[in-house]
Each structure stands twice: as C-alpha cells, then as structure tokens.
C-alpha cells in the first residue's frame, strides 16, 4: 500500500518537475534568445523590465494570460481547443526518460531512445491539429509544411539515435550516460552523427534555417496565425522549451549527460546537484548554438529543405550507420576505429559540403541565360 502511494507521489513529483522545467526553460529561453539576437543585430534588446530586462518574458507571459481568448467562428471547436494542450505533451513526456542527474530519473525505461522519437512526434500532431482546425489558409499551409518537414527529418534523427544505441549497446538513457563516464563522450566518437542529429533537431524544432512552418514573411505566423492569448502562449512556450529539451536530449546522448568534474561533491537526498549544474550548462551551450545558427543562416525553401533531408542527410545517414555497424562488428579496437571514422567523416562533410554546393551554384550561374543578349 505504502509502495503504491510512494509510487504515485514519485510520479506526481516528476511530472511537476517536467512542467516546471518546460515553463522555466521557455521563459529563460525567450529572454535569452531576444538578448542574443539583439547582440547579433547590434542592438540592446529588452533591458527595461527588471535588472537587464530579465523579467521581460514573465511580463509577456502575464500579458498573454490576460488577453481575450478568441476563437474564429469557422474554426473546429474541439480540435482548436485540444491542439494547444496536446502540443505540450512531447516536451513534458520526453523528460520522463531523461536522467537529469545521478539519482534523478523518472523511469529507466528500457526502450528510452525509441520512446524519445515516438513521443516527440506529438508536437507535429498538435501543430497539424491546430493548423487544420483554424480554418485559415496560412495556418493550413504552415501545418502541412510542418508535417512534411518533421516526417522527413525524423528519419535522419532516428538514424543518428540508432548509432548511439549501437555504440552503447542499450536503448536505456541511463546506460547511455553511464557509457560516457570518464569523458568518453559519444560526441567525440561520432561527431558526424552528432552533426546529423543536430541538424535534424533544428528541423524538428521548426527553427531557422528550417523555420518554414512559421516563416513570418511568407505565412504570417504559420499554424498559430489564428491563435491568441494563452492558447498561442502554449505553442510559444512549447517552441522555446523545445530548445532546452532538445539540447538536453543531445547532451544526454552525445555529451555525457550530467557527467563532469566534481560529480557528487554536493548532493541532497541522494541527488547529485553538481550533475544538474553540468547538465544545464552543457544544454545551454547547445541552446546558444541553436540561437546563433538561427540568426546566421538564411531560411531554406520548402523544396530545398526536402531535398536536403532526402538527398543528402538520409543517404549519408544510412552510409554512416552501415559503416559504424561494420566497425563495431569487425574492427577489434572498435572505439579507435569509430574515433578515426567519425572525425574523418565530420571534416569531410564540413569541408566539402559548402565548396561543392558553391561550385554547383557557380556552374548553374554560368549556364543561366543572360537576358541582355
């Protein structure tokens, strides 16, 4: 009896933690991105609400809650209401298999990696629901773009996760972290795999340069055009919480999760607080990368986006998977093999992709007819 009660208490605790992480991360990220964007754009950004403007997103959140809850007459009432609720499921549920730190893990699910992929698709579902239910053409186009994009980019992401699972030999995320003790981070063994995962996760997050579903210059606000007030706020929160959640996943899979120096130095009820610190710090390095990328690369076009996924990422991902599997299977000291292969493929991709693309563009330019003949 007491076990059941404790179990329920534990479940409630972790759901509360998950929601708190989502909300806090969203508020922090919104502020963080606005300041980082302002820094990149040579501006100040929000710096009036509270010291250095840190309370700006809190103020925005209250503003959103106070707004009129508006629903267009033509919208589908059920789906329109359901979509903003559903959109949070992915961000919250993913955390249930993420080890925040030593001793702070909701469930050591033995199919953790598969769970990650499965549950993260909920966001697509919600976006599709919202876009469809709004009965607005911009929303619909945005939602369909989102669906197409996420389906395409889930494949390279899955391939990247597959490689992690192959290296670790387990689908449990706490095993993944345990494997990376002593700084044997998978990101070092398989940098190219990380790059693939990272690109796919930008696309999954609908962020620049893959922010087609809500590209404001084309589709006004994409799938959330008709949403206002806190309903819009839910989409917005999810989008920004997604930055942290996705970075947390990346850190867990590729950068040793909560591992770092002085682990266990400060702990409370068996929970390693130093681990939390490293986990958050590593995540925010990746979050900053996400922000940086967004404001440094122009947006792709829908067909280029699909082409990049299906013509480049997926074939390369398949080849990468095969090669990794072969190395693990046949090379005696396979870790060294992976290390060499990983960095060679990483530098080959980074060094060759841009020049090759530019060469193709130059050739196309030469072939392009001159109108002033």
């Amino acid at each position: 009896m007491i076990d059941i009660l404790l179990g329920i208490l534990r479940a409630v605790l972790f759901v509360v933690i998950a929601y708190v992480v989502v909300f806090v991360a969203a508020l922090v990220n919104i502020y963080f991105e606005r300041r980082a964007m302002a820094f990149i754009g040579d501006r100040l950004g929000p710096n009036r609400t509270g010291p250095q403007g840190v309370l700006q997103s809190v103020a925005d959140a209250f503003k959103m809650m106070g707004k009129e809850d508006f629903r267009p007459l033509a919208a589908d009432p059920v789906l329109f209401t359901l979509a903003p609720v559903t959109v949070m499921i992915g961000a919250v549920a993913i955390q249930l298999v993420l080890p925040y730190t030593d001793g702070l893990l909701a469930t050591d699910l033995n199919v953790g990696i598969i769970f990650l992929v499965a549950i993260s698709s909920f966001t697509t579902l919600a976006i599709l629901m919202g876009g469809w239910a709004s009965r607005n053409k911009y929303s619909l186009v945005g939602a369909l773009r989102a669906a197409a994009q996420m389906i395409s980019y889930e494949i390279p992401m899955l391939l990247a996760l597959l490689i992690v699972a192959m290296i670790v030999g387990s689908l449990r995320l706490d095993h993944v972290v345990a494997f990376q003790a002593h700084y044997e981070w998978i990101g070092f063994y398989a940098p190219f795999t990380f790059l693939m995962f990272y690109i796919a996760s930008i696309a999954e997050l609908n962020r620049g340069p893959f922010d087609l579903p809500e590209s404001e210059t084309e589709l006004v606000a994409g799938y959330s055009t008709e949403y206002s007030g806190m309903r819009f706020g839910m989409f917005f929160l999810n989008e920004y919480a997604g930055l942290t959640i996705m970075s947390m996943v990346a850190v867990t899979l590729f950068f040793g999760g909560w591992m770092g120096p002085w682990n266990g130095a400060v702990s409370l009820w068996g929970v390693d607080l130093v681990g939390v610190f490293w986990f958050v710090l590593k995540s925010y390095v990746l979050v900053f990368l996400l922000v940086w990328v967004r404001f440094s690369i122009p947006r792709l076009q829908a067909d280029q986006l699909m082409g990049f996924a299906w013509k480049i990422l997926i074939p390369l991902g398949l080849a990468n998977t095969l090669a990794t599997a072969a190395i693990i299977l046949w090379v005696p000291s396979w870790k060294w093999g992976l290390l060499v292969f990983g960095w060679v493929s990483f530098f080959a991709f980074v060094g060759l992709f841009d020049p090759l693309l530019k060469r193709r563009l130059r050739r196309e330019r030469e072939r392009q007819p001159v109108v002033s003949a």
Partner: protein
Amino acid sequence: MYDHFETPEPDEAVKLALRRIEESTARGEGSDVAGLEFNEVVVNMGPQHPSTHGVLRLVVTLDGELVKDVIPVIGYLHRCKEKIAERRTYFQYIPILDRTEYVAGINCEWAYVLAVEKLAGIRPTRRAEFIRVITAELMRIASHLVAVGTFTADLSPLGTAMVFYMFRDREDVLDLMEELTGARMMFNYFRFGGVRYDLPDGWVEKCRDFVRTFPAKIREYEALVDDNAIFLQRTQGKGVITQQDVVDYGITGPNARASGIPLDLRRTRPYSVYPELDFDVCVEHHGDVFDRYRVRIREMRESLKIIEQCLDMLPRGPVQVGSLRAPYVITPPPGSCYVGQENPRGEFGTYIESDGSRYPYRLKYRDPCFCNLQLFPKLLSGNKIADAVAISGSIDLVLGGIDR
C-alpha cells in the same frame, strides 16, 4: 459565441481571382495531379502582411506551395496628392512631395522642383546644384539600405540581423540630413532656384567621414550574404525580368539595370551637374533577384563616389537665386512640361500643366514603383510562395508613391 464576427463577402479582387480559377478549370487547365478537380485556394496577402512592406495587398491564387495567379490591389494609402496640388501654390506643394516616396523624399522633391524650374525658367545656383546632388545621393544610399535590408529580412531571420545593421548605418545618413535640413525624413529642403539652407559648419567634414567609413560597412554586408550558399540558392535565377518585360512594362531604375539595360536618367537624360561627375551606371546581366540586389549594393558605392566628387568640387556662392529668400509665389507661364529624375527606384517624373496662375492646373506623377508593380502578376506566377516573397522584396516597392 462569436456571431458578431461575420465572414465578410469576398470583394471584387477575390471574386476576380475565383472567376479566373473557374475559367482555367473550364478550359481544362486545372491541376489534376491527384485527380482532384479543384485544389487551388485564394489567399489574401496583405494589406497587413509582414512581407508586403506597406499596405500593398496581393490576392494570390495558390496551388499548394505554387503561386498560380496574383492580383495586386492598391489604394490603401491614397491621399489625393495630385488633386491637392491644384489647390496649393507651387511653393506650398513642396513638402507634400516628401510624403510620396517617403523612403527617399528628397529625390521626389527634386523631380518636382526641376519641373517647376523648367516651366518658370529659373536656373538654380551652382552651389545649390551640388548640394542637391549630395543630398539626393545620400538619400539614395539610405533608400537602398532600406530596400536591401527589408529584402534580406524577407528571406530569413539572418536578415533581421542584417536589417538592423543597415538601419543602424542609415542613421548616419539621416543624422547628416537632419543637421542639414532639420528633419530626418520629411525634409522640405529644395526651393525653386536653390535649396533652403546652406551647409552648416563642419558638415562637409562629417560627410567626408561618412564617405570614408561607409565602404567598410558595404563590405560587411557583402561578407554576410554574398557568399552564402543558401542565399545564392534562394536568389539566383529567380524572378527573371527580361529586357522585353522592361520595355513592355516601363520598368526603370535598378530593376531595369539588373536586366542589362543601362537606363539611368543621370546619364541618359542628364540634369543638374551630373554630366560633370564621374560615375558608372551599374548594370548586371541576368535580371534575377540576385542581380537586383547586386545592382543596389554597387550603386551605393557609385553614390559615395559622386558625393566625394561633389564635396571636392563644391563651389562658393549663394544657395538660392536672387535675393536671400526663394520666391514664395511664382506664376509660370501657361504651358506644360514633364521632367524625369532618377529616383532610387527608377524614373520619378512630374508632369505639370500650368494655366499661368499661382496654382498648377494639373499635376501628375510618373512613379517608378507603380510601373514596377504592374509586372507582379507576370513575375510572381509560377513561383513558390517563398520565391514570390523574395521577388517582391527585390522589386522594392514603396506604397506611398503607388497610391499617392
């Protein structure tokens, strides 16, 4: 619950778009890829859309991501500017000009002042001519900064950084103009036979500073986007304006020059002191979005060259003809005249019909954006939405001039 919001009746433009779809389906041109008879939707882009730069409204027929048809709807910013001229003296009308193409107001003033001077036979002083060229070229730079900045912002969030760099640097120009004219955008600076104020003390040095520092900033813009593969992919070969289009639709300015037509009124129909100045007419040869962007970037450099020469050649003397004050009331002899002037967007012409009174009998603009807009249905149809946005950004419309 919300029944006080009724779906409005489709207006004329939407009805026209729907009728065109019906007609094309009746002709059997409907896209029947999936066996669907009707899969085109009509979407309103604007008048409040993030990428239409003002109150332009495009009724767009979409087939999935593909733009099938575009009907531009204008008039949301109509302020009866041409009619107002008939009830104002020639002098009183000058400030109205700043509000037509507000991005480069001084160039519009110049077009009007040129026409009135031609009609009334006034010759501006030589110093005033140089000051006019300097201010007009400064505003050409500012205008191109706005054009390129908003165009890159249309392409991506990268542009939101770029657009801030460009507006930051536009501030330098506006500061110079503010010191000279007292206003940042609505200058009211040109007078018949000269300009309103002489250059303030130290202005020439400040202007030289600007001319010296600005090329580094242009290189910064080029470094940001010119070599970016995604940017090139988004812009090269998109929205090609052929030379036939240029002739058919009366396209002028950078858009015509990007198609390889060296049409620059500063050279082809020279006015003021431009014949004495050394500058190139920037011409590109593919006529696509990228070339239009390149022409604007290169023209900024040419403008700097012109400003530098003018500062060197700046003569001493009065900035207005005759007495200290410009004539407030002039009565040109009956007759009419048309003078075109090279605006940042193309040929901005003013046609004035005078009946010998203090008021123009009729005034008519030839606005470059109005002509460029006519190309939209042809240029955008058949492109993807994303391309259509990039193309419309590269054409650089200012609605103040189109709607008047």
